[in-house]
């Protein structure tokens, strides 16, 4: 399991290669990438700043990864979450799950994303054409997490 909270960008192919290194038993690799969108509601996004709680962020991402590994037959997984200043089109988060079976890989990646939205200590601030604001948490995201209970 590779967990990282980092300012730097990530490369998906390179991250997959890390998981595949020295093994030829993986049949299924699912990935999810979350990116900064240029529009949020009716506002144009100029910049996004991601604040995080160093130490606890990695710890919580790790907990989510372990929980996913306990629920699905995963071979390995990667969770990378960026922090700092990002522009529209920039990568925010990457989840990679590998398994012998595609359902496990897909479902675990969805689970990780749903949990990460509400449980990982990251906060988004948007700089828009109409001023700056902290993104409000969506109750919707709690619902999505709750479906895994």
């Amino acid at each position, binding site marked *: 399991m590779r967990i990282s909270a980092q300012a730097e960008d990530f490369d998906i192919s390179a991250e997959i290669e890390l998981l595949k290194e020295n093994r030829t038993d993986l049949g299924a690799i699912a990935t999810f990438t*979350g990116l900064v969108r240029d529009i949020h509601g009716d506002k144009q996004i100029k910049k996004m700043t*991601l*604040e*995080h*709680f160093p*130490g*606890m962020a990695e*710890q919580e991402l790790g907990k989510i990864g372990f929980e996913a590994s306990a629920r699905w037959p995963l071979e390995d997984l990667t969770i990378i*979450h960026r922090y700092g200043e990002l522009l529209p089109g920039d990568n*925010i*988060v990457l989840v990679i799950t590998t398994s012998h079976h595609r359902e496990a890989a897909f479902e675990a990646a969805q689970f990780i*994303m749903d949990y*990460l*939205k*509400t*449980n*990982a*200590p*990251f*906060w*988004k*601030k948007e700089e828009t054409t109409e001023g700056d604001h*902290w*993104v*409000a*948490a969506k109750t919707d*995201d709690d619902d999505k997490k709750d479906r895994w209970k």
Partner: protein
Amino acid sequence: MNLVYFALIRENIGKSSQSIDLPEGVTTTGELIDHLSTLGDNYNAAFAQSDLIRIAVNQEYVGLDHPVTDRDEVAIFPPMTGG
């Protein structure tokens, strides 16, 4: 006690961390928030909406009835919006 703040709560209070001496009678996270709210308008504004407060004691999420001591690190922040 070490306090750390993030995001809007950090901005409202105007600092990202501080050390305080835990007053007599403050033994839970809820009592701590009540105490901090008396320290000034900036704290009061930061903690006005109790449903928008999340707390971690020594990097573990806890509720408002969690015990706190002078040796704890208490982090206070709004609901998370990562992902």
